């Protein structure tokens, strides 16, 4: 049973979509409950997985080889025999390691909260919940997939439900916002697709190739010696084209000896594109693909539009989880496969992070719409993820993952806070409200927690995350000399700015004398309902607990991060030497 837990995690919601589509109309009122039920089931499985996750066991840290992933599921999926081109194989591989485990937990938590928040949706409910469940399945799949093809499948598939959820259930301008979201992300994924094709054309699966060559009877019988032999044969060019099994496996793509000699993306190809080595260009393309999703300034403009138009629960999912796929993809794909590129471009990536932090914060300072402000604060916070990743230090990477988790929880809470106001009055202009604290005390309290958590007050998870990132980025110049110190120093300005816009918004909306621009809103403004409390309080508790006791999360990711950092630093440098030598 435990063998199929990950599959269950991905396909239960997709199955739920079918159930909702097929149920008769008389069940109209229970679609929401079914959705919450299925998402809670996901949360239970995810928590069970995290309880059993051996974060401290050295042999089960994932990253480098498939055997070290936990809860691994692997079976053959697509094998295309393409004649002289050889075989093309995509496997159904799911697994968990320190890069993905926190994201899985985050997804499960936020999806349940989002589902509860979706109860506000009153029109076309069947379609909404069906798409929502589809979305939860595909997001899970995206974090679990260890095969590029499978990953890409979920990555793209996610766009469609999101497009409809924003476009149909969104605000006035939703057609524009949803198509903008779709096109931006699709352009990003096109960059990724090109490199996926290129990698599949350059990388072989040594195990399947050994079976193809008759060196072993079946995949189970392939020993490390045989793999070694395949590598030697590959280098000497003894293997015929038509016997090569080309693979989409992300893990095989990380090993330089799996590259076909002289293939464009192999280390020895020496092929240049636009004046740089092809591998650097490839890294940049994958990176940009994910940077659009994260988003990084100047590729961020879809985000505020999408947030302002999206219904509350979709904003929650978008900010809480979807942005993290960008950061996760950078680590899992761009950095793991092209650590050389990561070194080569570290300076620019860090700069991009710093610009995002400052630009996002400055624009947030100038916005009048609460949701738009939170959206820009997301841009700013994702800049920390970039900075942490660029540093390639254990603290920096842990900080980046911590920040993704923490921001997932906090931004979910923030968009719910905005949603509470929007649900009552349909208006999110900050200037319309003043002194809400006397009218809605419980709301004010939770909003204060969320605002303070987001601005990085010690005691909340946001503070811990940003602290780790700063430590890592600052240390980087001593460890691997990738991020200059001045960038970290400039980035700390972001903290001041975010304190400024949050406190200012806080003061304008909640403090002072109770006053509304439009008096008719007065009777609509009621304090939080039980349902809203149920959504907001767990999030507040999580951010507090993680702020006080960060080890809960760090224990999960620490081992893998260590492996990842070592790999990216040493192997990355080796690759660069090999490329320059070629």
């Amino acid at each position, binding site marked *: 049973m435990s063998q199929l837990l990950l599959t269950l995690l991905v396909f239960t919601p997709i199955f739920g979509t079918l159930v909702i589509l097929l149920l008769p109309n008389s069940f109209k009122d229970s679609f929401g409950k079914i959705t919450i039920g299925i998402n809670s089931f996901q949360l239970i499985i995810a928590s069970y997985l995290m309880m059993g996750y051996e974060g401290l066991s050295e042999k089960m840290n994932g990253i480098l080889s498939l055997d070290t992933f936990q809860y691994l599921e692997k079976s053959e999926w697509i094998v295309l025999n393409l004649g002289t*081109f050889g075989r093309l194989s995509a496997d159904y591989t799911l697994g968990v390691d320190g890069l993905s485990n926190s994201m899985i937990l985050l997804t499960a938590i936020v999806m349940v909260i989002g589902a509860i928040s979706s109860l506000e949706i009153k029109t076309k409910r069947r379609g909404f919940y069906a798409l929502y469940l589809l979305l939860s399945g595909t997001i899970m799949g995206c974090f679990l997939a260890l095969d590029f093809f499978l990953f890409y499948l979920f990555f793209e598939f996610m766009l469609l439900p999101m497009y409809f959820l924003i476009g149909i259930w969104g605000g006035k301008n939703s057609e524009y916002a949803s198509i903008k979201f779709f096109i931006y992300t699709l*352009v990003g994924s096109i960059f990724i697709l090109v490199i996926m094709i290129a990698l599949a054309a350059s990388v072989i699966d040594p195990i399947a190739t050994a079976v193809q060559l008759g060196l072993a009877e079946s995949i189970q019988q392939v020993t490390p010696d045989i793999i070694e032999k395949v590598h030697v044969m590959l280098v000497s060019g003894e293997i015929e084209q038509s016997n090569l099994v080309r693979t989409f496996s992300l893990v095989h793509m990380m090993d330089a000896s799996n590259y076909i000699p002289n293939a464009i993306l192999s280390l020895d190809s020496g092929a240049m594109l636009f004046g740089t080595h092809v591998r650097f260009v490839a890294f940049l393309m994958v990176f940009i693909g994910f940077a659009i999703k994260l988003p990084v300034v100047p590729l961020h403009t879809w985000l505020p539009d999408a947030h302002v138009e999206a219904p509350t629960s979709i904003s929650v999912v978008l900010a809480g989880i979807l942005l993290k796929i960008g950061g996760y993809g950078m680590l899992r794909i761009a950095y793991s496969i092209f650590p050389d590129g990561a070194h080569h471009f570290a300076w620019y990536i860090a700069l991009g992070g710093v610009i995002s932090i400052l630009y996002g914060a400055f624009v947030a300072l100038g916005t009048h719409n609460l949701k738009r402000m939170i959206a820009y604060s997301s841009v700013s916070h994702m800049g920390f993820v970039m900075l942490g990743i660029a540093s390639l230090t254990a603290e920096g990477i842990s900080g980046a993952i911590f920040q993704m988790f923490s921001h997932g929880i906090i931004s979910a809470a923030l968009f719910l806070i905005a949603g509470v106001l929007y649900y009552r009055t349909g208006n999110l202009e900050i200037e319309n409200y003043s002194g809400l604290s006397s009218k809605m005390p419980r709301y004010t309290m939770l909003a204060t927690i969320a605002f303070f958590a987001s601005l990085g007050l010690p005691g909340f998870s946001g503070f811990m995350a940003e602290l780790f990132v700063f430590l890592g980025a600052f240390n980087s110049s001593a460890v691997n000399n990738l991020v200059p110190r001045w960038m970290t120093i400039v980035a700390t300005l972001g903290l001041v700015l975010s304190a400024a816009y949050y406190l200012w918004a806080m003061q304008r909306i909640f403090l002072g004398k109770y006053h509304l621009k439009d008096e008719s809103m007065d009777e609509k403004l009621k304090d939080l309902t039980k349902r809203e409390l149920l959504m907001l309080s767990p999030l507040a508790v999580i951010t507090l607990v993680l702020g006080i006791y960060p080890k809960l999360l760090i224990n999960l990711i620490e081992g893998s991060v260590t492996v990842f950092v070592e790999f990216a630093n040493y192997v990355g440098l080796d690759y660069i030497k090999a490329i320059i030598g070629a």
Partner: protein
Amino acid sequence: MGQDLSSKLSNIVESLPFLASEVGIAALLIGVILIDLIFAKRNKKYLYAIVGIGLIGDVIYLSLLAEESVNKLMLFTLVQDNWSIKLRILSDVCVILLSIHLYFNSTNESSKTKLSGEGEWMTMALGILIGAHVLTMANDFIVAILALELMSLPSYLLTAFKGDKKGVEASIKYFLFGAVATAITIYGMSIMYGLTSTIDLQGIASYNQPFSPLFITGAILVMMGFVFKLGGFPMHIWVPDVYQAAPIEAVAFFSTLPKIGATVFLYRFLVETTLIENTYINYFLLSTGVISMFIGNLAAIFQNGMRRLMGYSTIANAGLIVIALLNKDEIAANALFYFLWVYVIANYAMFYFIGEIEKEKGTDDLKQIEGLGWSNSAALWGPAVILAIVSLIGLPPLAGFTAKLLIFTSLWELYNANSNLIYIIVLFLGLLNTAISLVYYLKIPFFLYRRNVKGHIHLNIALSRFIVILGVFLVLTFLIPSLII
């Protein structure tokens, strides 16, 4: 001389068993004419069923035939290989889908665009089918041009089949363009024949290389007639007009079947004559492909009618087919084959839908489908159409994605083989077009679900179940591509 003649005769006699499929279709065609003549003035819907069942038989026969060996038939004017067998099956499927389309559209008595003449329809469709069959096997110019004309002439008639003014105008337009395209092709063939004094493809290959500029010009002219059938640049002008005015069943048919034959012949022509290795031919294909994609996708953005939208989408897809022709390896053949299957199924699903909307609303205007998705009778139409559209865009988890993936992989292989940057640029432009196409393809599902329904709409529920099957086929072939390849 006598010896020679008898060996030729025996070759022809030996070839006949291999043409059982075509002979069978010809018999079916004659049968349809006879039934049509004998049982005059009666509802002859059963003709569709007869043709459909007959062709299913042919599909079964052909799929049992699948073998690896290459047979040279009829004095090597025809070639029967795996590739031609597989594509003849797909051609049959097109006509089967057509007869289902006609069957459903004639059941509905309230139909405003009802067509009479079941016999005529089936006769002409079977005629086109024989042309397509022969074209998939053609190995010399004369046979190719005959097959091309066999496909074209009934098409002109079918365009004007409604008998209204617009249809006749489109038919004349189609005829004039088609005639010119054929003339250009024949002109090119005459140039090549003049230079090589042979008309079979292998003979041309042995012509002194490097090819002279005149020879290349001839080859490009030869390809024009087939690019016309694909609807690619510069022979694309007829597409939107014909799509706008012809009966919807004919449009669906034109958008699929002729492309199969044309693609196969182009592929065979380029590979057998070794012209594909020529740089100028490569540039011709590259530019035709890229320009077709841009023209198609950019123009489609501004369309309000679904027929024209699909017309421009056809032009864009023709560009993709032409680009896939660049690589001569097996991977490209597989990619094309897979692409054609997926394209036929997705296109048919779209045209079934457009036809149904026209029957209900009397127009194919996009605004007319606003909110339709929420009506009860469209409960299955909506999801099925979304599946078809997503496949046309080329997003996972639908087969259209795998088709594009294979085509782009074959392009990458070209780059890998000869490090010419142009292939990468084309690859990028192709993918960029995917993003552009998103803007107009997504209009359809967006309009379907944007507002609430106004009034009552009765779409054919039985037909929608069939479309769902087509949609499921597209998902299944994504999950298990070996179903097709």
